[in-house]
């Protein structure tokens, strides 16, 4: 089954880590790509760079900032192929953001038939 792992964190949380911790986290993110379950992934620029787009009455309306105004923002996503939810959770729990005060949301993808 395919799952999306979405990494949420409070901006600035990473800044509280020591240099060594940050380097270790970076190495772990890079190592994700070598996991056999990894399909694709990306790190996002900070939420201040986001533009929200909607179309109403044929007009394109733009808003500065992310769609949901929450304390925690989406910082990265990763698509994986896992045997089942437990397999996906195991990978999610190994992602540094999950233990540095953030959250990894695990969502199954709609299957292609």
């Amino acid at each position: 089954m395919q799952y999306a792992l979405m990494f949420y964190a409070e901006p600035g949380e990473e800044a509280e880590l020591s240099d060594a911790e940050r380097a270790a986290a970076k190495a772990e993110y890079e190592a994700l790509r070598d996991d056999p379950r990894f399909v694709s992934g990306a790190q996002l620029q900070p939420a201040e760079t986001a533009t929200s787009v909607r179309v109403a009455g044929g007009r394109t309306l733009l808003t500065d900032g992310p769609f949901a105004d929450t304390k925690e923002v989406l910082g990265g996503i990763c698509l994986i192929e896992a045997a089942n939810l437990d397999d996906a959770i195991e990978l999610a729990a190994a992602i540094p953001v999950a233990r540095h005060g953030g959250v990894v949301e695990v969502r199954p993808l709609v299957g292609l038939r």
Partner: protein
Amino acid sequence: MLASLAGYLGDLDRAEEAAQEAFAVAAARWPETGVPDNPAAWLVTTARNRAIDRIRRERTLAEKLHLLPAPEAAVDEFDDSPIKDERLELIFTCCHPALALEAQVALTLRALGGLETADIARAFLVSEETMKRRLTRAKAKIKAAGIPFAVPDERLLPDRLDAVLAIIYLIYNEGYSGRVDLGAEAIRLGRVLAALLDGQPEAHGLVALMLIHQARQAARFDGDDLVLLEDQDRSLWDRTLLAAGRAELNRAVELGGGGPYVLQAAIASLQTRERIDWPRVAGLYRRLAELTGSPVVELNRAVALAQAGDPAAALSAVDRLDLDGYLYFHSTRGELLRRLGRDAEAGAAYRRALDLATTTPERRFLTRRLEEL
């Protein structure tokens, strides 16, 4: 039966549907043909065949067809091979922590306890419609999110077993509610779990704990007044349940158990002895407090210390706790102060407890204590 079908079909909804169909077929056929030699196997095979027929009808994609296992036997031929017991897989699926707690409880009662949705709804004081939605949502998540139908591997097992035990104990503590005796149901589930997972001391510990509590059930209330352990009429205790509980506790101890349920069961067991060994009870509470970090356990340890004859040590343990909003903190302090002859302070503590009391029996009990000072 449901567990076996769910394991075979990998889908709780289909399993339930198929089981219902099989019972309907049996109800129509058995009065004429007589009951088959192995009714359970007959029902499972019939249900499987019906489910496969249904899946075949539903799936139009040709490539899916060859993936389905062919029916192994026609409905009327049977081998005597035992039905594979897949209740353990089912319980770990129902109590998967990715499901909401209330959904885990409901699913476990529905799928493993075989309770009707209406009865579960009544027991948890929600409408049948709400309970139906809760179950449907949970089953949909199991399917869509890929919650496995499997006993977790060794790395995951300790955590997942804790989750299962917590759900069973939660069900136990709901007690008798509506038409269903959830206490008895929880004990039954716990016994199944302990038997299927023999070798897990905490599973036996939980069963022991529930059985020992259950044995004292009839003596715990006088009308709706709670009767304290020391005042309970021991002739009302159920000796059979008590012996069964102690046997489970022994099994847990043989297995090297020393987790929270085993400790609680050991404490409950000691408290049913003719002469209670309070220093030992206090020692077990100390171990339990170390494991759980719970101030309420620490409060119980203090009570045991007082019973062991040292109310001063008990009071100093109690005074270290931060439990100001907790009724039993104040009633315990009141009791200890009374024993130490500090009546004025005891009165203040009882009055504080009275402020926090929410039920009539609690209020009655505390008022009586105040008057006795």
